[in-house]
């Protein structure tokens, strides 16, 4: 059979935009303020782990611009973010309650306490890549229901190796579902560097194989991330999926139990470009405002610390009550036995 002509249409060129990027001062301040909260939360949470308050924590230091910038581009009335375990900048960017969120890291309740439909982000997720498919399915539902909503799927260079991500990209492109695949390429998947993880070094390069547009952006420039995500979302609503690859760097350990000195050198860490927080500071260009914003961030995170330490009422009953909407008879019996055997005092 003769080779058919290639039917793959050339994907749209979305980036850089012809007229450049401008983000107004008010928006920049909103972005910077939330980046500061994220940075303070990360810095503090690592200490909380060392102080025995949290059993473990995966800091997102260095990824604030990528996370906050993209999350704030979402329309909270109709969009939804699908996050993994290192996306608290997204949680902050969506103004989702941090104490609810930290419930997961406090080991009170896997997934935390937020209602995804209200806060517009999924519970955090340990199995990276899986959420790309959820985002695709959710986005397809928006298309069916005509809501105009779009999904944004967050994952990293590591997760891009999972089959789920490729399946999601293909499904989304075939069905023209409104989903933005937002890759935070932070150079490291735990101890595995980009060159052992992503052949060719770019996840965005894969988009063309699925006939969808891709954007490679500076993930440490919050203005750029915000503008690019807006463009991607608008394209997704009208035409279907887009890949954004935000280049950034995981400046901290994979998690509090990790020791990066086993696999990367201080020289490498020092050779990085500017800290995204400093980039934002220059964009805002108002030192007085900045100093106040830093203080507000400290206070906001300290309030989280205090709230976290006044324990929630959570007990073993919850363990049984949320397994099903309709509990099985066996589970009812097990719950009764649990009560009998643990209420001894």
């Amino acid at each position: 059979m003769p080779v058919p002509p290639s039917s793959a249409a050339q994907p749209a060129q979305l980036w850089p935009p012809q007229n450049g990027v401008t983000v107004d001062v008010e928006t920049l301040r909103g972005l910077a303020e939330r980046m500061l909260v994220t940075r303070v939360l990360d810095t503090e949470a690592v200490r909380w782990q060392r102080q025995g308050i949290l059993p473990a924590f995966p800091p997102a230091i260095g990824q604030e611009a990528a996370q906050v910038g993209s999350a704030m581009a979402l329309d909270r009335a109709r969009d939804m973010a699908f996050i993994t375990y290192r996306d608290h900048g997204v949680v902050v960017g969506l103004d989702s309650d941090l104490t609810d969120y930290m419930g997961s890291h406090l080991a009170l309740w896997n997934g935390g306490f937020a209602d995804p439909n209200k806060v517009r982000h999924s519970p955090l997720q340990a199995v990276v890549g899986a959420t790309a498919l959820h985002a695709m399915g959710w986005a397809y539902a928006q298309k069916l229901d005509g809501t105009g909503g779009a999904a944004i799927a967050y994952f990293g260079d590591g997760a891009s190796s999972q089959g789920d991500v490729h399946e999601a990209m293909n499904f989304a492109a075939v069905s023209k579902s409104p989903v933005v695949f937002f890759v935070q390429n932070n150079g490291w998947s735990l101890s595995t560097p980009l060159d052992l993880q992503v052949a060719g070094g770019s996840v965005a390069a894969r988009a063309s194989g699925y006939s969808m547009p891709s954007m490679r952006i500076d993930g440490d420039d919050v203005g750029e991330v915000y503008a690019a995500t807006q463009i991607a979302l608008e394209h997704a609503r009208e035409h279907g999926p887009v890949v954004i690859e935000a280049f950034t760097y995981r400046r901290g350990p994979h998690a509090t139990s990790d020791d990066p000195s086993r696999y990367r050198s201080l020289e490498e860490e020092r050779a990085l470009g500017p800290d995204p927080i400093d980039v934002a500071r220059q964009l805002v260009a108002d030192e007085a405002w900045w100093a106040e914003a830093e203080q507000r961030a400290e206070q906001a995170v300290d309030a989280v610390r205090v709230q976290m330490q006044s324990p929630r009422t959570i007990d073993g009953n919850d363990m049984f009550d949320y397994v099903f909407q309709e509990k099985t008879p066996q589970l009812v019996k097990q719950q009764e036995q649990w009560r009998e055997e643990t209420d001894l005092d």
Partner: protein
Amino acid sequence: MTEQLSTQKAINTALREILADDAKSLVFGEDVGKLGGVFRVTDGLQTEFGAHRVIDTPLAESGILGMAAGLAMAGHRPIPEVQFDGFAYPAMNQIISQIARTNYRSRGATPMQMVLRIPSYGGIRAPELHGESIEATLAHVPGLKVVSPSNPHQAYHLLRRAHEMPDPVMFMEPKSRYWNRGDVDFENPGDLEGSLVAREGEDLTIIAWGAMVARSLEVAELAAEDDVSIEVVDARWLKPLDEDGLVASVAKTGRAVIVHEAPRTAGLGAEIGQLLTERLWGKLEAPVERVTGYDVPTPAGDLEDEYIPSIDRILFGVQRSLEY
């Protein structure tokens, strides 16, 4: 030669020896190379044996197990790792649909000689899907063998034994016991087949595996204070189950309590209970008791103590059996 090692170090030692002795063996998985694994179980192996035999793979569990299948088809003897029990789930397609039945499909021509190492069970306050007990899921699959060591000596020798076996072995390491030390007698493995009596007793048999063996031994110690003599059997091999060994102990004591972290329904406790009923009908002094995890997802850290069988809950199970 006997040495005091942690379970983590005992497994590391076994892997080092396997890699040195068997040129066809390979160790691979996420972060097992340069980092040495998140529990440092593979520490130093990449430096010693090279990045072509101790491989940091991309983050793709189905890929890791599928690659293992291909290597085994080519006559290599892979020892892949999934970083945590819950990350075996994304690999289940390769484990169940491929690895478990490739020998069958090829009428024995392409055996799947491999050991899949799975840091397993709860007890370390880890996040979701880092504390799963999947032994029943694995044991249910025709074509897989399942083993779970309970201490450093067993871990060292059972891993070496598993590597020699011609079939795929799921090696479930109790991660809450990684750092506990114990004597490893390198020259004298003891019998590595079937179960093992970890403590002798007369009145009742507790059957356990993995981290629950140590806890059951504590229970036996407490029970002795009340003049109750408990025999603790470390099941070790969960597939194939050591039917004769388990039956022999319970035939002696007349009573059995099975302890596992996994959820109760369709857990291995049910399988073992049925075995004991079949073989000891009329000789049991009481119905076989189970003390298990509940039919709930492994809960977050603070609820772990409610979920994992506690000493008290095991004692309750013992008492139910005694007073039947």
